[in-house]
């Protein structure tokens, strides 16, 4: 029995939504999906940044609906699997069925790292549709390895084919990744895959992804030029370059990805996706990366400092999805000035 092949999951067209306020045009998104497929990535995730039906005042309205973005993409892909994201509490099983009807054959069902049991009905429904299912344990730095692995085991018991260590705050360091992946490998069945999803807030996106792989993760998330929330995800073209140097085989073409990253993606970024004072604050305070642009907007509106707002959100232990609390924190800070 050979080693399981590394599976490269692109998130440029999902996590990348956060970096441009969910404003990809329909045609541009489709063209990018086709280019990514030609460059050999194994899966392409498409939806609002906060998953199906994420469009809202709380998370930002998209330029299009998920259905408009997804329509006609599956037919154009030759190699890559069309994937989407679903957060129970935001999207529903009805949304998942709509996505399936548009050709989506793989879904990641995401919960906070301690709340896996809310994913049961969605994972079971996805398996019933015959989809490949990943369980996505977000803000993984907020749960210790053994307890996180218990949550992973729950997702596996509902039917997940793969469970992810999802470092939504980009706050994990390499040992933290290694310990969590090892804990997963200890409790999960051998045919359940393990995945790793990183953010680059502490500049460890690639390093953490590699460490994850070295401890048994086979599904690796990455995006072109790191296009994603906060300081972005593990940059895809860099990851493939490193894997090539390590003689780890993938289907991806590094030169094509480098061109796409610089020619197609960087020009789209309204705010550069990079490690800077604000995005470093996310990783340093352990705050959900998607809070970045919302916090910058609140800071501007109320005359406050973005990094201060982010630190306070971290202190209050806010989890993914609580974007409404950014304005709440800002108003409290104004009162206490």
């Amino acid at each position, binding site marked *: 029995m050979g080693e399981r092949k590394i599976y490269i999951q692109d998130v440029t067209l999902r996590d990348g939504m956060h970096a441009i306020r969910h404003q990809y045009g329909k045609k541009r998104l489709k063209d990018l999906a086709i280019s990514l497929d030609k460059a050999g990535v194994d899966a392409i995730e498409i939806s609002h940044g906060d998953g199906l039906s994420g469009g809202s005042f*709380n998370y930002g309205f998209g330029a299009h609906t998920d259905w408009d973005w997804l329509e006609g993409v599956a037919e154009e892909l030759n190699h890559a699997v069309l994937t989407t994201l679903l957060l129970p*509490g935001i999207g*529903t099983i009805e949304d998942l069925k709509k996505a399936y009807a548009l050709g989506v054959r793989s879904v990641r069902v995401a919960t*906070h790292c301690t709340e896996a*049991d809310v994913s049961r*009905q*969605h994972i079971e429904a996805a398996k019933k549709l015959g989809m490949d299912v990943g369980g996505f344990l977000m803000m993984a730095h907020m749960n210790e390895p053994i307890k996180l692995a218990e949550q992973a085991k729950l997702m596996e018991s509902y039917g997940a084919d793969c469970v992810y260590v999802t470092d939504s705050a980009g706050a994990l360091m390499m040992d933290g990744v290694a310990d969590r992946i090892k804990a997963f490998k200890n409790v999960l069945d051998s045919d359940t895959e393990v995945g790793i999803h990183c953010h680059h807030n502490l500049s460890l996106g690639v390093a953490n992804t590699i460490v994850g792989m070295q401890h048994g993760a086979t599904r690796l998330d990455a995006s072109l030029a790191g296009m994603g929330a906060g300081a972005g995800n593990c940059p895809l073209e860099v990851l493939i370059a490193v894997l090539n140097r390590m003689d780890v085989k993938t289907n991806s073409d590094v030169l094509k990805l480098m061109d796409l990253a610089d020619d197609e993606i960087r020009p789209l970024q309204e705010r550069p996706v990079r490690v800077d004072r604000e995005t470093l604050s996310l990783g340093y305070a352990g705050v959900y990366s998607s809070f970045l642009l919302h916090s910058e907007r609140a800071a501007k509106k109320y005359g406050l400092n973005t990094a201060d707002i982010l630190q306070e959100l971290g202190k209050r232990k806010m989890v*993914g999805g609580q974007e409404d609390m950014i304005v*709440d924190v800002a*108003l409290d800070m104004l009162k206490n000035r």
Partner: protein
Amino acid sequence: MKKKAAIIGSGNIGTDLMIKIMRTSDVLEMGCFVGIDPASDGLLRAKGMGVEICATGIDGLIEMPIWKEIDVVFDATSAKAHVYNFGMMEKFPEKKMVDLTPAAIGPYFVPAVNGDEGLSTILGLDVDLSDTDRVNVNMVTCGGQATIPIVAAVSRIAKVHYGEIVASIASKSAGPGTRANIDEFTVTTSEAIEKVGGATKGKAIIVLNPAEPPLVMRDTVFTLSDQADREEIRKSIHDMVVEVQKYVPGYTLHQEVQFDDIPEDEPVFIEGVGHKSGLKTTVLLQVIGAGHYLPAYAGNLDIMTSAALAVGEKLVK
């Protein structure tokens, strides 16, 4: 003399409601507390408080001598179980039912919005409720009870095209029934934002936060309405908060009402509504529970059981 209530469902909500009836109601008293697990904390608690219990669900309840004395049945099980439970009530049309699950078989009821007269109206009845057969009233969801009054408060001033709510609750306050049925929460709450809140399109989001010590329930309401006098909207919201406080004392505005212009040349694109400009109103609420079963952080239990008790009392008066 007080009328007798039965509660089906021995989880967080059922147990909280039982304690509320025993401590606060002048109209109702506990007849029977019904579960399906004799070892559940709720059933043990009821036994300890001297309440008659039944561990075999509604099937067991209707075989008990106390059954014929029961006037109102509160269902705090799950949406799926409620369908069965309501079916079993068919042979007992004189008994009223209050549904605390998101099943929504009966009409939605939010006390502060529907008001004293509203109960007859939403049921399509013009008569004394105590003479009416086969009544089933649905309490939407905890997040719906907390937020729909605010949507309605904006609706009575300006046309609301879109109402969105975010309910954040402490993980510890969400029992296994709630966790297994998150979709029922989002779907039922969204629909009630439209039907009771008056929004053309509703959207509901729920977030569980596991922080220790547990965080108090927070609810945020966003509406997009036609432009209107902001002071009038602000006053309408403040008045509505006072209405809800009559049955949920821990219900407060955590911040002053916030307004934003959505200009015509920069509309938002809302699924099911299209491109829309107007007035965005943001209302940040907090619900501190009465601490009857779970501690004060569990405002989600308190707002649900307080609203259900208010309705149950009206049904048997």
